[in-house]
């Protein structure tokens, strides 16, 4: 029996889809069988981030409404094939057409076959969010170190608890160590003070992400990228390994000077 994780945030644009793509790819690279489900109906883009858009024939709604067999809607990843598959969101339909029971049934079926089923939730806390969390055994919250994103994450923790999803974990995304050091950005402990839930990882802000998103190749495969390293670490933590948090300080001459002087 696999694990079902929902990736959610409340606030939009904090990196749910990027995280889903990278954790899925990272887990597949570690030999796990992973199924990604894009539940953001009407605004699909997980397929784009994975570079699989041109292979879509059937989507999540086709599966839920029985218009195609589950097997036919699974899109195999370019690199990992059967080990990493995607069920894309429907692009054209209204999201109110999905109901939580149908999602639950689908997820039950998927976790027989896959080690990880990762549900990419839409932003917001309405119908689509409720569909996405139904059937999940665990939740991963994404937040950026901004007051508004943390506030929304806090709200979502409360909603997850009332939906029976206890012990969510958080990934702090797009941290900028230079700004934290100057006191211009919330740091990890500020976020932790408010949310008080385990931190699964901290992903630094990284230009490689934009490049890789546009190319449709998850940054987790990029050995030179710090964000990629952070995602690889998170994937290994999900498998129960103890990986210490990365040192996000810069490694250039100025950084070295500062270290010597401090």
């Amino acid at each position, binding site marked *: 029996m696999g694990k079902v994780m929902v990736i959610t945030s409340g606030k939009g644009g904090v990196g749910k889809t990027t995280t889903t793509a990278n954790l899925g790819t990272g887990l597949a690279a570690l030999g796990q069988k992973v199924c990604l489900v894009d539940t953001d109906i009407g605004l699909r883009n997980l397929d784009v981030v994975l570079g699989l858009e041109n292979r879509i024939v059937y989507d999540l709604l086709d599966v839920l409404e029985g218009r195609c067999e589950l097997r036919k809607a699974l899109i195999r990843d370019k690199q990992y094939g059967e080990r990493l598959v995607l069920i894309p969101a429907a692009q054209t339909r209204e999201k109110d057409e999905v109901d939580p029971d149908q999602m639950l049934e689908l997820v039950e079926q998927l976790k027989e076959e896959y080690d990880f089923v990762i549900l990419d939730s839409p932003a917001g806390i309405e119908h689509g969010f409720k569909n996405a969390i139904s059937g999940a055994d665990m939740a991963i919250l994404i937040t950026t170190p901004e007051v508004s994103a943390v*506030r929304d994450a*806090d*709200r979502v923790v409360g909603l997850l608890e*009332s939906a029976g999803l206890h012990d969510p974990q958080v990934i702090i995304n797009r941290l900028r160590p230079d700004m934290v050091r100057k006191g211009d950005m919330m740091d990890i402990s500020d976020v932790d*003070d408010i949310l*008080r839930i385990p931190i699964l990882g901290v992903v630094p802000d990284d230009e490689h992400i934009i490049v890789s998103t546009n190319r449709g190749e998850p940054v987790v495969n990029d050995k030179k990228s710090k964000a990629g390293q952070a995602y690889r670490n998170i994937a290994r933590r999900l498998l129960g390994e103890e990986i210490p948090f990365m040192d996000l300080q810069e490694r250039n001459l100025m950084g070295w000077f500062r270290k010597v002087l401090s």
Partner: protein
Amino acid sequence: MSQELCSIKGSREGLVITISDASQFSEVIGSLDRQLAASQSFFMGASAKVFLRVGSLTSEQLDQLEQLIAGYGMHLDREPPSFYSSISPTTPVQDSPKREEDNTILVRRTIRSGQRLHYDGNVVVMGDVNAGAEVVCTGDIVVLGSLRGVAHAGAEGRLDATVFAFRLEPTQLRIAHLISRAPDEKVPLPEGPEIARIVENTIQLSIYNH
């Protein structure tokens, strides 16, 4: 809140749904539905009694009420609340604070953004009250953690109500009819616990030393 035809409060006997005028039953049902929907599943599994300020309900109306709250995971206790019937709704509790008789609820979790806690009595939170959360009660509020949200103590007019927190940094603080808010600029916080109370008709914060 005072405009609503009904309110949901915690009491010694569990939840009490207070209906101000039973003759406007359909509006009461509408108002109750809105409040329950807004509270999400906060009341899940709770049992509730009904207290009528004016008028009475037929058994069909009670059935309808029972169905509505059952939809939010609550069940109806048809026994009238004994404790409530003795309080006249028009008398402010202000000058007869019998503290030893008050209810106190212990909340063993953090109250998060979007969650609201209303209680008839004192509230003790073992956790934080985060920004965006709201605690309103008729008695004192004690937060064994950080208070960052909105707190209203003595909500029915009790002037001697207090708000205590290990770290008192609320968005807004209300005691009885007075309101104060956090200053717009950042001010350094004292490290230790603080208590807020009314002194000369304003809310004052002071370092708590026993």
